[in-house]
């Protein structure tokens, strides 16, 4: 078994041949990012155990544009990861899988259309829901940044 010729970690993001491939890359990147944030968040909230003073000084330390924007990114990442994750649950477990059929020429076009419909429809339904949510967060953060 050889790794020669294999793309390695780079292969997780290239070649981007289609939409789901891009979603896959983003899902993975946001997943790793969110895990890092999770650890920071756990550390941050554990400050509570040290008493009121520490908690307030931590809050004050975090109250600046850099962290607010960072938080917005985290929220967006979480929303994307969640929406795409629900699609993945439905698709990966074969819950919304189409029936296999005899391929029709031109094969590639036929199958791409079938797949793209499924992905677009699920992502749209999920997207509209979370977009409202994200928009509100965004407006609030804008307000914070405006101060």
């Amino acid at each position, binding site marked *: 078994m*050889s790794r020669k010729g*294999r793309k390695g970690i780079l292969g*997780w993001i290239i070649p981007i041949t289609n939409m*789901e491939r891009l979603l896959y890359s983003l899902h993975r990147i946001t997943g790793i990012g969110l895990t890092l944030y999770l650890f920071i968040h756990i550390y941050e909230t554990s400050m509570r155990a040290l008493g009121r003073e520490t908690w307030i000084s931590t809050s004050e330390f975090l109250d600046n544009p850099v962290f607010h924007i960072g938080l917005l990114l985290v929220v967006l990442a979480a929303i994307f990861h969640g929406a795409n994750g629900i699609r*993945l649950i439905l698709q990966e*477990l074969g819950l919304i899988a189409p029936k*296999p059929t005899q391929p029709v020429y031109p094969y*590639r076009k036929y*199958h791409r259309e079938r797949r793209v419909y499924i992905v677009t429809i699920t992502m749209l339904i999920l997207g509209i829901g979370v977009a409202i949510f994200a928009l509100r967060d965004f407006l609030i953060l804008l307000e914070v940044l405006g101060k």
Partner: protein
Amino acid sequence: MEERKVIFRLRRYDPETGGYREDRYEIPVYRGMTVLDGLIWIKENLDRTVSYRASCRMGLCGSCGMTVNGRPTLTCETQILSLERDELTIEPLYNMEPVRDLVADFHQFFKNQRAIKPYLIRRDIEEQVEPTREYLQDPEEWNLYIQFAMCITCGLCYSACPTTATNEKYLGPQALANLFRFYIDSRDEGWEERLAIADSEDGVWGCHLATGCSEVCPKGVDPALAIQLLRREILRKSLGKKTRREARPLAPLLPPEEESPYRAFGEAPEFTVEGAEEAAEKFNILHDPRKR
């Protein structure tokens, strides 16, 4: 007709140095000329040392897969003008060991293909080897697997997959699609065995539904769909639900006066080529489930 020129940039692997080297060739293009035609033209007119693998030139043998402009492509089926580029970058297939120039090594790929037991598994092996009757199958059952039986083992899906990019143990889209093809075949009885092969980190659970495989497949196999369906079967099995139905019984016996047509063929003719007998013997051992 006005002649168009297209530049082929070949990213050639050199086994002696273990590195890549890029060569540029300018070739005249006519309407309908495929990428493979371009490579043949280069070999005939410009540089005889260019190596690539190709055979049938009509999208049946699955030999000529290469990466064209960063996308795994069956070169004999892709027309140069349809790509609408003045420059094509051609590389060997990703995620396989390069052999020389544009040729990639399918060793691991076919090893995976063998690992999934790509043949009918029957409980009654005697009947399978010396058939007396037909296996029955109706068009509905045929429809369930025919899509996955279209595979020509060209390896494009393996090269487009992000999991194979790092995980050399992963079975890959092609092998899993083929596994499903036999799993769902109404004549097959090895479904327990097959699910056990698929149910591992390097089987269906290695897939993350990037569907690059289905996108690049030149035959509409949709390996990602096969993996999803396999997963559903595994899920159903672990929940204790019914999975695949039993194989259908054999065709009814013919009345004794009408001999089975399988018997009518008589003995095979004598071998006329030297060494053919041993080759046939080897082949039989390979394909006889009793000797496996």
